[in-house]
């Protein structure tokens, strides 16, 4: 007996032991990977547009289609909540791919659409009321832009766990732990915290190095979300390079003063993603 189950866009194929096959099979995604590598470009373009993705160079199209297939045919863990696993993916595919040209937007585009609904498991809640409120605020502060950890499971963000099979509430807890760790790191480093308190922009790459050195695994997208929720200014420019010094270098007809107000080269300081 074969059972086909369609859970949103995810096809699950369950096969019970048949007379000639005593081996028990667990839930397995059975739709095989199409031969994307062998398709020609118009065909690939066609397949991509069905997902709302714009035409790309051939190599990238193949990779993208394989990626999409991987995420729409994931193993679903037995204790996952009813949250539609592909909610994240359909949301992502709705998002026109041109947005990926805006750097940094892609990793979080998935997260942007799905709102977080799940409450924390009661057993895990600390008995101290103020502590709980603080955590709730910590979480809501970073959720301010509708980032969701339920989508983290299937989202194509760079910081998703390599073992893919964690439940939604586990993902939330992990994120919260990491955010708490970032906060602790900032509070424990007087020089860094002082810099923040005086509104001096942080160099993102340097902060990421610090986090890495401290063993805090937090992807750029989530880190940026957290910094934004805390209204901490950061820059993706290399240290020692500031917007004003870059502008001053691009002098035009009427000298530095005119150049300082000009738009030339300024966008780099903002990395146009936010």
């Amino acid at each position, binding site marked *: 007996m074969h059972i086909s189950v369609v859970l949103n866009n995810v096809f699950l194929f369950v096969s019970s032991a048949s007379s000639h096959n005593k081996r028990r099979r667990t839930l397995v995604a059975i739709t095989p990977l199409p031969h994307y590598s062998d398709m020609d470009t118009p065909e690939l373009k066609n397949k991509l547009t069905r997902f709302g993705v714009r035409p790309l160079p051939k190599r990238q199209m193949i990779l993208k289609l394989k990626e999409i297939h991987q995420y729409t045919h994931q193993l679903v863990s037995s204790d996952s909540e009813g949250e539609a696993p592909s909610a994240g993916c359909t949301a992502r595919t709705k998002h026109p791919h041109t947005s990926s040209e805006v750097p940094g937007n892609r990793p979080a585009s998935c997260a942007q659409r799905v709102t977080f609904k799940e409450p924390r498991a009661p057993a895990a809640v600390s008995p101290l009321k103020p502590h709980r409120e603080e955590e709730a605020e910590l979480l809501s502060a970073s959720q301010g832009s509708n980032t969701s950890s339920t989508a983290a499971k299937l989202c194509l963000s760079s910081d998703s766990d390599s073992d893919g099979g964690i439940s939604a509430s586990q993902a939330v807890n992990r994120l919260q732990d990491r955010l708490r760790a970032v906060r602790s790191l900032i509070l424990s480093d007087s020089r860094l915290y002082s810099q923040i308190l005086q509104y001096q922009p942080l160099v993102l790459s340097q902060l990421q190095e610090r986090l890495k050195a401290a063993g805090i695994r937090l992807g750029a997208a989530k880190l940026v979300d957290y910094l934004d929720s805390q*209204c901490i200014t950061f820059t993706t420019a290399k240290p020692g390079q500031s917007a004003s010094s870059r502008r001053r270098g691009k002098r035009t007809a009427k000298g530095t003063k005119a150049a300082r107000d000009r738009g030339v080269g300024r966008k780099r300081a903002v990395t146009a993603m936010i």
Partner: protein
Amino acid sequence: MVYMLTLRCYLLESFFGVYMLYCTNPKFKGRIYIGFTVNPERRIGQHNAGRHRGGAKRTSGRGPWEMVLIIHGFPSDIAALRFEWAWQHPHSSRRLSHVSRRSKKESSLQFHWRVVSNMLRVAPWNRLPLTARWLKQEYRMDFEPHLQPPLHIPIAFGSVRAKKKKLPLQSAGEEEEEKEEKEEKEEEEETSRCFLCKGLVKVSEKLSCFHPSCGMSTHVICLAKHFLKSEPSHLLPVEGDCPACRRSVLWGSLVRHKHCCFGDLEEITPSASQRHWADELQI
């Protein structure tokens, strides 16, 4: 020329503003332009003079332009530039996904005002020490009831002139040494006690209450933690009561006072500006 340039005076920007221009030419139907400046007075002149005199290409020859609104008080150019970008591209900004597109009955001016009203209320801008200033009262609009800015963000009216913050003169080539010496000297001469933790405060870590009759000193971090008692999940304070004189102070004001740019601008009366005679008319 025999003079050797051994002395340099460092001027620092302390004014960072993001402004909105309105086109008064009926041919261009109330077009809007958003831009960044460290000097609003100079900037509007550049816009109206055209691209060959420093104005933006997009506004060149499409004037005359009036600078009607400016958001200022950004603590860095980076913060201001990001704000500028988001205001120019609200539908691309991740933080403004809740802002709907311009409706048919909305003028460009109304739309941009709605966008900026929203921006002041959300992270990463809603804790910055900003001021929303209408430079031209005839264009002034109120915040919609549901889009009121955070309480610490004042709404101001009237023209401004950016002040430059001056650092003491230093010899070229000896800058580093002198700077360090100076800092050390300052620390030797003026170590104070933190009002909160009673420990010694180095000048570089010191915040002082800017009310002349108070002048209490604390560590930056001590005062921040004190102010954040009511907002435990945040890292950046917005305002609080001075522990000594109890007056309510904005965090941004304290930081500006520390960096000696407490006056990042000065108000100018219309007669002081060199522009159009009509500016001087009282309404």
